């Protein structure tokens, strides 16, 4: 009886959280799937059932496939760079350096700032006329004329640079946390066995990091593939916006520039399904690796 009453108290305590999650996240997700089958204006009421027409239009749209390609280029390159830089930085910051905690805090800081600040800082550094980066490159005689970082040839590179700067600290945080729990005995044993620093990293550190890297790659993939604000804010006022129009940007434009809520939702659903399929493949691949 006491158990039943306590179960009821438990339910009552979690109920507000559950209600809010259902009302504000799960319901919109369901509603989004629903309106993806309708022709619906983003502002005006009223809708018309069109069955799969939105999806067919999406798949027939060249611009959609281009957005998918650009999104893949963006997410794969930023994730690779974030991983490399993040793991390297975490290894460095795990050493017994003087002022280590302050160093760690500084390195993590770009991750907690508003994206708009990250973007304006880099737009200023990469300004083609007065930017410090071009000045440094020209002074070092690495380039003859200023690079147009926001122009069509370079805007993807600029976007990748800003994104890596902003998001690699996530990898640092996760990896550093794991490094601190690796038992020192493992290293001592390896050292006694005469393993070099590189071999210690390969055979002691890396296997220990495998599980955390698995989660990091999963989360970063989801969040980079759906990243909206960094490319969107970088796009503004450049004239090269179509060169970084990734899938989230194009989805947003469909809904809030062309006012096609139905078709925009269909694109969001497709984006979601792509992630689900990718995640399923990823999990399978991982399991095969594990069993080897």
């Amino acid at each position, binding site marked *: 009886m006491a158990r039943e009453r306590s179960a009821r108290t438990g339910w009552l305590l979690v109920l507000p959280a559950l209600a809010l999650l259902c009302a504000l996240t799960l319901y919109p997700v369901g509603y989004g799937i629903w309106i993806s089958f309708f022709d619906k204006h*983003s502002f005006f009421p009223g809708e018309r059932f069109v069955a799969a027409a939105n999806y067919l239009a999406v798949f027939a749209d060249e611009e959609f496939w281009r957005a998918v390609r650009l999104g893949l280029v963006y997410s794969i390159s930023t994730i690779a760079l974030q991983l490399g830089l993040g793991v390297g930085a975490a290894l460095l910051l795990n050493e017994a350096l003087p002022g280590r905690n302050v160093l760690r805090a500084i390195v993590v800081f770009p991750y*907690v700032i508003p994206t708009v600040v990250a973007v*304006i800082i880099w737009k200023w550094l990469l300004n083609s006329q007065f930017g410090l980066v071009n000045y440094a490159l020209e002074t070092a005689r690495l380039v003859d004329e200023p690079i147009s970082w926001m122009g069509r040839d370079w805007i993807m590179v600029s976007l990748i640079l800003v994104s890596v700067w902003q998001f690699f600290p996530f990898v640092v945080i996760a990896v550093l946390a794991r490094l601190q729990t690796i038992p020192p005995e493992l290293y001592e044993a390896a050292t006694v066995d005469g393993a070099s620093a590189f071999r210690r990293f390969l055979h002691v550190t890396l296997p220990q990091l495998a599980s955390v890297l698995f989660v990091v790659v999963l989360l970063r993939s989801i969040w980079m593939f759906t990243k909206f604000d960094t490319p969107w804010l970088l796009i503004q006022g450049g004239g090269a916006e179509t060169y970084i129009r990734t899938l989230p940007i194009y989805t947003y434009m469909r809904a809030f520039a062309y006012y096609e809520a139905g078709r925009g939702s269909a694109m969001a659903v497709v984006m979601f399904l792509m992630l689900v399929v990718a995640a399923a493949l990823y999990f399978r691949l991982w399991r095969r690796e594990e069993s080897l």
Partner: protein
Amino acid sequence: MTRALRLGGWRGALLLAGVAALLFFTAFPFAWMIATAFKAPREIFVSPPTFFPSELTLENVSRLFAQTRFATYLANSVLVASGTVALTLAIATPGAYSLTRFRYRGRETISATILFVYMFAPIMIIIPFYVLMRTLGLANTHLGLVLAYTTFCLPFALWLLRTFFQSIPLELEEAALTDGASRAQSVRYVVLPLALPGVVATGIFTFILAWNDYIFARVLISADELKTLPVGIADLYNASVVDWGMIMSAGMLVLLPVLAVFVVVQRYMVAGWGSGGIKG
């Protein structure tokens, strides 16, 4: 246990070079923003560029407050972020307590759902969410914005607090209950004091998420007097000729509250607790 570092030798030199490069990459952009914010407009564009302003000036900051609605955006951001923290904590704290201390059917399903929703990105729900808010008459209101932020703060707040409550030994509560305390009393006098650092840290992470958001504020708010800082600054940048001194001082000022609260929670972040403390 830390291995002692010998700063001599090639290994030490390599290490120091790596740290210096890392520090330069992360910190220099901030330093350049601050330096620019304090320079007089004509010094900003000189060639060769100077790093330290030849004379420190607050011209840019005062122009920011005089010529733009920065003060209004600031007040809006403070209001919306605080509202989000209050609502999220009020709902997530009892929820997380329930998930760690009570047994009932569906508990594991709820936890799994929370983790699943945590991985959602705003772009995946923004369209239906906007239509929903319009139908409810909450588009273009701060309440609508607080609700939007709560959707993506709640899952991670529940998750963090759950981890935190799990770290508080059950025996302490049981001892209080055995001594004749009621459930409410044991929560009030035993659990909450121990959980307080976790609740504060979760509140700070929530504040940062709400403070930083761009997409929900962009979509939900159209009236200029209701805009928050990220949207206000983005519009300032897009206005016409970019006033770099003013923009850099705006960026600097937006970072001050983030920096202040970050100092409190950074040790949690690098210690691993709450490594998922923030998403983005």
